[in-house]
């Protein structure tokens, strides 16, 4: 599945701030169609570093469906285009569930699927500003302040 042209253009506008933010935090951002063998412009690969353990790195797969209107799917993977069901690719943090391969929080497709009631009110997905940057900053904040190690 890929995104429509409107979503593509919106992501292109917002992704520069995300790449800058991740670089400032020892991470990296790659769009799938810019990687070798990749073709999906709605998927991004994020390298995230937890501040408490700077030598550690996690690779997250963010898949957008309609940007900025819908929350992305977020999965942690062992390598680009690697399995999305590898528990050891996941960090141990509040709301992150390596056993279910999802994040049970109102910030991603999986969270809103598990809890449809989160789609309303203050837990609803934000569409103002730069939601791409918001979701990545939220993840980085959780890595920096709530990281408890890597899942096995």
């Amino acid at each position, binding site marked *: 599945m890929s995104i429509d042209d409107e979503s593509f253009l919106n992501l292109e506008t917002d992704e520069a*701030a995300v790449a800058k933010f991740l670089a400032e*935090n020892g991470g990296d951002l790659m769009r799938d169609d810019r990687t070798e063998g990749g073709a999906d412009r709605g998927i991004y690969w994020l390298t995230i570093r937890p*501040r408490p353990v700077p030598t550690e790195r996690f690779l997250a797969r963010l898949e957008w469906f309609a940007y900025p209107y819908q929350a992305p799917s977020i999965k942690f993977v062992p390598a680009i285009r690697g399995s999305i069901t590898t528990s050891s690719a996941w960090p141990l943090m*509040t*709301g992150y569930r390596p056993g279910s391969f999802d*994040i*049970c*929080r*109102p*910030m991603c497709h999986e*969270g809103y699927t598990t*809890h449809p009631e*989160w789609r309303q*009110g*203050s*837990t609803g997905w*934000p569409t*103002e*500003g*730069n*939601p791409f*940057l*918001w979701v990545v*900053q*939220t993840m*980085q*904040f959780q890595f*920096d*302040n709530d990281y408890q190690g890597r899942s096995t």
Partner: protein
Amino acid sequence: MAETERNERIQVRVSFPIGKKGAYEAKAEPETTVGVVLADAIRHFEVQNDSQFTYVLAYDGLERNDSTTIGSLAGEEDEIKFTLVKKITQG
């Protein structure tokens, strides 16, 4: 002189990626607490805490205590940049 510099007001900037307004900016005394800046930023961005979320300020990636002064964080710098974080309590 160092002491004179510490007594100068500090340029404060708070960013919030999903805010309806641009960044909150102000000049503040070094003894101003994080809690005061947070309250001003919450008013600026027109958001509020509820049962699902608590708003906090992060500086250099880390959540900062409300009682911490911005002068102690800024050190010799004449500006300080925070991020307003919508801290999820649900999940």
